[in-house]
């Protein structure tokens, strides 16, 4: 496996519900573990007697990975403190780019201003451009491209400082 293939694999797993992947080839072993936060759901959690939809993220195997997980978790906590979340103002399908294949409206790291189109939400064949109401730097994309979103669902995390 070359580096490009590993990159593609990581991207694919990141988008999926898979908790952990292990690949073993001659002279080469690769383990990829999903971060602990759950993939965004459109719908509320099901009632208790139904099985949880996502496989739970596997417990960290050793102390090294434990501290690594804790670090990424606390970095996340610190990060969300001063952040503003752009939430969905409507119900529909969330698209990150104007048409499939075209580049996304915004990426992590981008600086945005009020009025900047950040995504499209499509409902009943109507494509609505959603504009940012805040200024800042995009820190995280919180919803998956081409998935349904509901009212008030978090879409983007923005650092307004």
């Amino acid at each position, binding site marked *: 496996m070359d580096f490009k293939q590993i990159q593609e694999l990581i991207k694919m797993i990141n988008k999926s519900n898979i908790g952990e992947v292990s690949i073993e080839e001659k002279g080469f072993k690769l383990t990829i573990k999903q971060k602990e936060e759950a993939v965004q759901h*459109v*719908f*509320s959690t*099901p*009632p208790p007697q139904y099985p949880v939809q996502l496989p739970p993220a596997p417990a960290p195997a050793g102390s090294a990975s434990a501290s690594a997980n804790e670090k990424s978790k606390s970095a996340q906590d610190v990060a969300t403190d001063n952040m503003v979340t752009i939430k969905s103002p*409507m*119900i*529909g*399908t969330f698209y990150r780019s104007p048409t499939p294949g075209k580049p996304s409206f915004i990426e992590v790291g981008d600086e945005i201003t009020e009025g900047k189109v950040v995504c499209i939400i499509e*409902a*009943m064949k109507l494509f609505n451009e959603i504009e940012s109401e805040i200024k800042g730097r995009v820190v995280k994309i919180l919803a998956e491209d081409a998935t*349904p979103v*509901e*009212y*008030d*669902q978090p879409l983007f995390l923005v650092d307004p400082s």
Partner: protein
Amino acid sequence: MFKKLMIANRGEIALRVIRTCREMGIKTVAVYSTADKDSLHVKFADEAVCIGKPASSDSYLNIPHIMAAAEITNADSIHPGYGFLAENAKFAEICGEHNIKFIGPTPGQIRSMGDKMTAKETMIKAGVPVVPGGESLLSSIGEAKSLAKDVGYPIILKATAGGGGKGMRVVWEESEMDKAYDTAKAEAGASFKNDGIYMEKFVEEPRHIEIQVAGDRYGTVCHLSERDCSIQRRHQKLVEESPSPFMTVELRQKMGEAARKAASAIGYESVGTVEFLVDKHRDFFFMEMNTRIQVEHCVTEEVTNFDLIKEQIKIAAGEAISGQDYEPQGHAIECRINAEDPYSDFRPSPGRITTLHQPGGHGIRVDSHVYAGYTIPPYYDSMIGKIIAVARTREEAINTMSRALSEYVIEGVKTTIPFHQQLMRNEAFQSGNFNTKFLESFKMA
């Protein structure tokens, strides 16, 4: 049969529909405003979609949001419950345009019964007795005065687009007409965006007795007998029962037949209710038809042993009904429990329920969406549950209801439980001798 049904409503009726869908193997989608995030119907449904801010106009009345939610969940049917969009013909139309089955009658049927004047005309043509009055909307005070002389005082002015007691004024003599006419028009305009008013003879001290009907899409119609809903406060029903203590075999037969004629006249397809006013001579008059499932449908369910929501869904799926009429077996009484303070003029009392213990035992059914720890939002109606007592006789049903009400504990908010307890012990209520004016003179002890 439908695979996935979306409930475009909230509270106890949303829960009610979800329960039947579970039994029928239909997947459910709940929609909710941000204020209803912790609501029981959201937890019980298979899927849930947040559709907007707390205000009804932003959420439960927001047709584009509701349709978008149906689209992203691939719902093949929508149950509108009662209130909200349940009798909105435009919404029913839009569902049809999106190939989503609206669980209810056709838009045309909703329209023909939604406008009170048109409904009355349709009934006259069908040979259903109506309250004597004007044939059209009033165009001036002069016209109102001369019509009132013909009809005979007392008369009542009513809003054609109305409901819930708004835009209504009783006029006892001509000197009161000017003021009544102006205020009725103003209230109608403000409440329904339509200030059209018409006049009817005011039936004094009437009983409100309604007939549950059902019709399928093949033209078969039947009735499931009556519910007496005379215990009302400001035209809002508080207690309903079946059979009516005022009913006779002959009256039931006549009213059942009239209700059937009313439903047949419009080819009614779904479950619905034909409301009548009954005077002390047991003469009855068509008041209006409700083209939806009603709050008090449970009363009929308990005395006919039918799941009316299931029947409604089956009819919508194209199943045929037998056409058989049903009479009540035993006696059922329903008390609507509202988060209101009966000692302070029934002022609404939203807030957090700290303790909840629902009654149980033989002959008790509770349809409620609240739970201990639940916060009643201030944005919607104050009904937090319905308690229905079923027994062999009316006396036993009242006894069972009294027993159950004494077990019903709701703390943290004020409720109308004390009112119902006092009503069950009231002699006039126990005698079955009451009409729609009864509560006007009822005082909390």
